[in-house]
């Protein structure tokens, strides 16, 4: 199952992360301290969950621009349920339900009504943001947060791991089984590769696309739940910061490992989080983080594009000939 090429890519990835980590370590020795690594893993958990959900949508070759809005709605639903005195489990389920409810709207519109896949998520994003203003007319919600125990989601530890990271690992394992060890998962890839032939092979392509959007919406809400737990308040702009890192992680992972997959997304997230964490330690202001992420994203897409890398190869070959 593990081919030679995969091992080479894996080794290259580990070397790359090691080099990056080494560079930061020489600049600031605190980079490899236990506290910082824990902080890095926590940051990675929030970004990773959103990116994992997006992976499914990218695998079926659709785009989901709506999940930041849906995540904000999830955050506000969660906050409102907690503030109105609901038990934590109900509140979390309510938040996730918002994501599951909105995801399929995109999926049905895209798969069944054949609306352009870029437009509908934009519309539902606007709609979701609008609904998220309903609960408190735009102010952030933080009543009852201490009593409800949601902060434990961030602070507690399981088997020595921080709770958020444990949740990410659990989600990644489930995601891996679904996407890489089941017929269902093969169907996702087949739908993405060639929808017509997948359909004629008996794969329920429409259902899978709807499922991919639902998973994406749910994971975005799960990720925002962790973010709300760590910040202690829900607000209407909470989701906006998820969009760039999630796309960057999925595409960076796909560029490193040849195609989007659960493992590739985790690798991409790890790399993004390492870089962002390192730059934060070097006291680079927060507003540069998007510039860093987007530069890496553009570079990853451009460099790993088959035609660009092919161009490099021919150039290298020419050099060899002349030399």
């Amino acid at each position, binding site marked *: 199952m593990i081919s030679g090429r995969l091992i080479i890519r894996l080794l290259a990835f580990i070397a790359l992360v090691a080099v990056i980590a080494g560079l930061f370590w020489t600049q600031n020795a605190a980079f490899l301290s236990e506290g910082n690594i824990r902080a890095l893993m926590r940051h990675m958990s929030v970004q990773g969950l959103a990116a994992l959900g997006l992976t499914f949508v990218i695998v079926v070759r659709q785009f989901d*621009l709506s999940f930041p809005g849906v995540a904000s709605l999830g955050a506000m639903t969660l906050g409102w349920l907690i503030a109105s005195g609901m038990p934590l489990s109900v509140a979390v389920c309510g938040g996730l339900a918002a994501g599951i409810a909105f995801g399929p709207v995109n999926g049905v519109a895209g798969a069944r009504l054949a609306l352009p896949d870029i437009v509908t998520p934009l519309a*539902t994003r606007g709609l979701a943001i609008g609904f998220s203003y309903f609960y408190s007319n735009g102010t952030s919600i933080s009543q009852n947060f201490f009593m409800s125990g949601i902060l434990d989601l961030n602070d507690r530890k399981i088997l020595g791991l921080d709770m958020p990271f444990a949740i990410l690992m659990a989600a990644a394992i489930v995601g891996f089984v679904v996407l890489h060890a089941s017929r269902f998962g093969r169907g996702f890839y087949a739908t993405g590769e060639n929808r017509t032939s997948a359909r004629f092979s008996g794969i329920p392509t429409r259902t899978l696309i709807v499922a991919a959007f639902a998973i994406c919406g749910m994971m975005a809400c799960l990720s925002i739940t962790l973010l709300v737990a760590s910040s202690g308040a829900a607000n209407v702009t909470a989701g906006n910061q998820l969009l*760039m890192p999630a796309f960057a992680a999925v595409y960076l992972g796909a560029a490193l490992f040849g195609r989007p997959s659960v493992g590739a997304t985790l690798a991409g997230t790890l790399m993004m989080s390492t870089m962002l964490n390192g730059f934060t330690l070097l006291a680079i202001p927060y507003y540069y983080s*998007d510039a860093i992420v987007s530069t890496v994203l*553009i570079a990853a*897409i451009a460099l790993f594009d088959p035609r660009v890398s092919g161009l490099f190869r021919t150039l290298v070959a020419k050099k060899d000939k002349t030399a």
Partner: protein
Amino acid sequence: MTDITASLSPARQPAKPHRHGGVFTRYGFFLLVIAVFIAFAWLRPTFIAPGNIHGMLMSASIAALMFLGLTWIVAAGEIDVSFMSVAALSNMIVAGLVQSGSGWALATLGGLAAGLVFGLLNAGLVAGLRLPALVITIATGALAASVAAAIGLGTSISLSNTGFVGSILNLRLGVVPLIGVIVGLLYAISWFVQEKLTFGHYIYALEQNRAAVVEAGVPVNRMLFMLYVLSGLVSSLAGVLLAANLSSGQPYLGTSYFLDGLTSVLLGGMALKLGKPNVLGTLAAVIFLIGLLNGAALLGWTDSERQIVRGSLLLIGVGLVVFARSRNRGRAHT
């Protein structure tokens, strides 16, 4: 069999709405705009006070300028989601340069240069290297937004004078600001280019079947290259005007224009030519959106209500396009 293939690729259906569609589908949107404006004027007479109309036309002109390039890109079947961040960047560059003592002329050139750079960057990556447009423009947009925030160290820059750009903005013919007339002329020229010249027909053809346009010998990549550069330039020009209009540089200005821009283009695509973004439609949709938000504010709607109305409008626009397409297809079959 035909049913399945048809339902799999409806976007490639040769829709001919302007032949099948009646007067209502063709001009329905314009009737809606007029109806909404009359309703607002009736409910709140201040809506048609000269000052209010002038203000609305001013913001509509700047927004329409920003969305001009986007209209053509979407009409060609591509996407650009970096336009609002490019506007924000040029806005901040102008503010930063003026604050540091350079004149407005230099600042304006600086802002436009930023638009040119990002236009070329998008064009090179999307049209030149044929990379996925959506992800690339998300990334370049984030890059522009980040640089914009960095110029003001994360906050806005307020300006004491608005220079010659400000005095141009202040010129007015009756209730119509001069800039509105200029943008109107620009849209008239764009309408002529898109509807009457071969270039415009190629734009429509690109959305329908790119492979066929390539086979016909049209330099598709060069066309897309031009469209992205144009989008960067008009967005940055709008950013320069906004610096004078707001007499400040706002790094997070982009977020409010993002949904408005795409809503205008797609809602406008519903007018005149079902499902095909065109400049007249965009102009009407911009005026509609600005009027709606302004009127809603006068009526005292809350933020959430206005947000939901905006999102629903986009959904309705898209839904109507699909409805019209499927009805036309049904007629074609019978």
